[in-house]
């Protein structure tokens, strides 16, 4: 069901006022192929951060 991942949200509760990941977004989080790409990206980002931070 398209609303499976939001069905626990109660109207006007604090959770009602924020964003909830879509089913596709959640799938991407554990999709090994996509995550391998993200793994490389995160490592690049962290390396840049380290290089910028050392004085």
């Amino acid at each position, binding site marked *: 069901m398209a609303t499976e991942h939001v069905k626990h949200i109660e109207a006007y509760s604090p959770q009602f006022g924020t964003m909830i990941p879509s089913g596709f977004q959640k799938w991407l989080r554990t999709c090994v192929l996509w995550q391998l790409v993200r793994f490389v990206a995160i490592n690049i980002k962290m390396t840049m951060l380290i290089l910028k*931070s050392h004085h």
Partner: protein
Amino acid sequence: MARLVIMGAGVAGHTAASFASDWLGKEHEVVVVTPNSQWNWIPSNIWVGVGEMSKDEVVFPLAPVYEKAGVDYRQAKAVSVHPEGKADSDAPYITIEYTGQDKEGQSEELTYDYLINATGPKLNFGATPGLDAGHTVSVCTADHAVHANVELENLIEKMKKGEKQKILIGTGHGMCTCQGAAFEYIFNVEHKLKEEGVRDMAEITFITNESFLGDFGMGGLHFKVGGFVTSSKVFAESLYAERGMNWIIGAHVNKVEAGKVTYELLDGSAGEAEFDFSMLIPPFAGVGFTAFDKAGEDITSKLFAPNGFMKVDAKYDAGAYENWKASDWPRTLQNPDYKNIFAAGIAFAPPHIISKPMSSPNGTPINPTPPRTGMPSAMMGKAVAASICDMIKGKTNEPTHTASMSEMGAACVASAGKGLFNGTAAAMTVYPIIPDFEKYPGTGRDLNGTTGEIGLAAHWVKHILHHAFIWKAKLKPGWTLIPE
């Protein structure tokens, strides 16, 4: 021959000792004074606290590592600092009291040419009535985390028998820091309950002194995601909402009793939250040194701020929030009065907090105090060691290296679960740690260096960091190549 004494062998002190002994060789002496016999990779205590790792996987004995590195290791706690020496000697010294090495309770004077204070925080459980009474658990030390897991296992047993349980995780005082640890722990607990098939038996609530979820003691952060510049508030709220967890923000927990906390909120109202299991982070203070001048007069307030952290080259008179600047933050971490004393990691006194100061109408301050996480603590330890080594080698009289939190970034990975394919994590980078609204108007941060995402990849990074940092701390081959 010069003697560098390092007080504390945590992230900052151990990094400083490792590099200093490497750079100084046998010509000079590096002495480490620390009450712990084991080094602890504290971030992985979270996994110990949910039974995913054993204590042995997050600690190792310091003595063999220091023996290999040629560091003189004293298992002792430093008690007082005497930067001018004493009546009959100009040599500055500290007093120490042994906690191990078969000398428990014995005191000694230890002279130094250079001193690094890297003693981290005192876990100030006493600040909130009842927080030290055993009603709640903590994950701040490996032993605390082992105990937290025992309590969590008991709770899960009850849920398996059909008893609904209330879980409360967060900060135990209005002036806490380290929200990130509580944040990571709550997601690991929730993940564990799912794995045990009892998630529906638990009502899980996060209680925090942050004025909004995702403040993290850094005034929040912004990153580019899905075509928007998004606040960490939305990012954090989304994580709780997705998992059906409640939150209480702007809370100063003022009393902990069996199964119940009472708190005051930023709007001045009072509330109560009941729990069957609770992990509350205590506020941090300096470890509580005293300091004396040559005549034996107490100069503690000259060397240390009222919260017990050591004064360094920060701008302590910046005044109101509107006047705060990134440049208020210390760069060399050198004490302004005693140039041979430095502080690194949590031990240095910040000029002010990072988040906007807030208090309730009753005058109770409720705001996070500044986090000084692993990466900046290690970078400070290394920079201070580098400056001191240059000074010892006679290259200069002034510090040569800087490690300002307003000129460095931090990476933080918060996991949920530990499995390589079923856990996920949030990976965040922030640059700079201290928002610089002059350089980066609007959000205070470089939007290319400040990022956040959730997924398995971040989880793999967390695993790698665990093994890499323990490898590095053990000074195994190639340790200098692993960045801080």
